[in-house]
């Protein structure tokens, strides 16, 4: 922010830096609550667990304004996009409940296969470690958390390095909506508190959204990797291809949207565009024009597309990438 003494950084908050000790206490709570599948939560009826999830969604909705505002402040996501992330998460919870009801109905039928009558039921996996990413700290984290919970798993949730404070208003909702030990939320440096959890061998399922490098190193720490179930969403490199006969207005619009929604900080963002040499000049001109017209500014400003980056090191890193590309003969057109 601007002050009379020039620019200064505004501190928006802080969270605990827990140690291995607290992380292992959270793990023990989840292990006890699961009790090898014989705990109260994993043995509860499907309708019972759905009620708890619905209760949580209700409590979560009451915290909407606080969560959306923190999401916007902490990771610099525009207000409409932050709100969209929250609403999509609520819709996801409702869809997950419907999906489980369907699954439960289908599973109540008998299957006749080669003269054998069978019934296929899905069971929980066990203690689940949920690690979400910084770019969608609420939505993506919940796409692993909610299915894990609704199936009867017990969970340890560790928010990403950035996108943490938004969990604060939800802590009471987790506490009040679920039996003790079913949801445990810990904070701290990932490299201090996650490895001991994996090395304990007591994590049955790893739900992780982030880089493949981090996923590999976490999986290797488990003493019995064959027993560990992983649900991973890793990085992506998506190309966009523009052919010579493309509708250029549409192609430019889609390419701007694809590359730069939320500043391009999305796993599904277009990372590279291949444009046919016949139309490259006219495409580039229109593409650069369109980008020059994007509004940049603070995330609460109306109509803003480009917003501040949450990580203070990022601008330096991005500049290095540009310099590196130039070194190999790239030309800038903005």
């Amino acid at each position: 922010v601007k002050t009379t003494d020039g620019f200064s950084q505004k501190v928006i908050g802080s969270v605990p830096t827990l140690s291995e000790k607290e992380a292992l206490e959270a793990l023990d709570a989840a292990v006890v609550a699961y009790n090898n599948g014989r705990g109260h939560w994993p043995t509860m009826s499907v309708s019972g667990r759905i009620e708890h999830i619905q209760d949580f969604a209700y409590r979560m909705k009451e915290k909407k304004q606080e969560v959306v505002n923190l999401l916007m402040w902490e990771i610099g996501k525009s207000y409409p996009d932050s709100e969209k992330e929250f609403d999509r998460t609520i819709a996801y919870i409702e869809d997950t409940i419907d999906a489980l009801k369907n699954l439960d109905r289908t599973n109540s039928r008998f299957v006749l296969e080669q003269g054998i009558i069978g019934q296929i039921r899905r069971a929980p996996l066990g203690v689940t470690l949920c690690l979400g990413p910084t770019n969608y700290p609420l939505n993506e984290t919940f796409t692993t958390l909610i299915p894990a919970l609704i199936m009867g798993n017990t969970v340890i949730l560790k928010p990403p390095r950035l996108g943490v404070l938004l969990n604060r208003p939800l802590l009471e909702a987790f506490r009040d909506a679920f039996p003790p030990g079913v949801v445990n939320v810990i904070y701290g440096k990932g490299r201090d508190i996650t490895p001991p959890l994996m090395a304990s061998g007591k994590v049955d399922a790893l739900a992780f959204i982030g880089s493949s490098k981090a996923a590999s190193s976490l999986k290797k720490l488990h003493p019995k990797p064959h027993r560990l179930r992983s649900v991973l969403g890793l990085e992506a490199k998506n190309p966009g291809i523009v052919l010579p006969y493309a509708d250029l207005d549409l192609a430019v619009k889609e390419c701007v949207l694809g590359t730069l929604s939320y500043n391009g900080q999305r796993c599904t963002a277009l990372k590279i565009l291949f444009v046919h040499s016949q139309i490259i000049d006219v495409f580039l001109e229109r593409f650069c024009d369109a980008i020059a017209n994007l509004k940049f500014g603070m995330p609460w400003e109306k109509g803003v597309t480009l917003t501040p980056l949450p990580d203070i090191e990022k601008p330096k890193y991005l500049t290095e990438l540009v310099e590196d590309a130039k070194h190999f003969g790239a030309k800038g057109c903005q």
Partner: protein
Amino acid sequence: MQLQEKPQLQAKINSIFPDESSIPVEFRLSDPIHQTEYLIDGLLRHWEGQDKKSLHQFM
């Protein structure tokens, strides 16, 4: 054309950071959120760490 736009762009960049009072009231964060709570076994525990420097701060 690009040459003409450059000074404007620089002006836009210079004016990007607001002063506190120009942030719309509904989006303002009155106080920093110094969170000490975490959730284990159905209980909100308070982190006893006293040293503020070891708290992770977001700017």
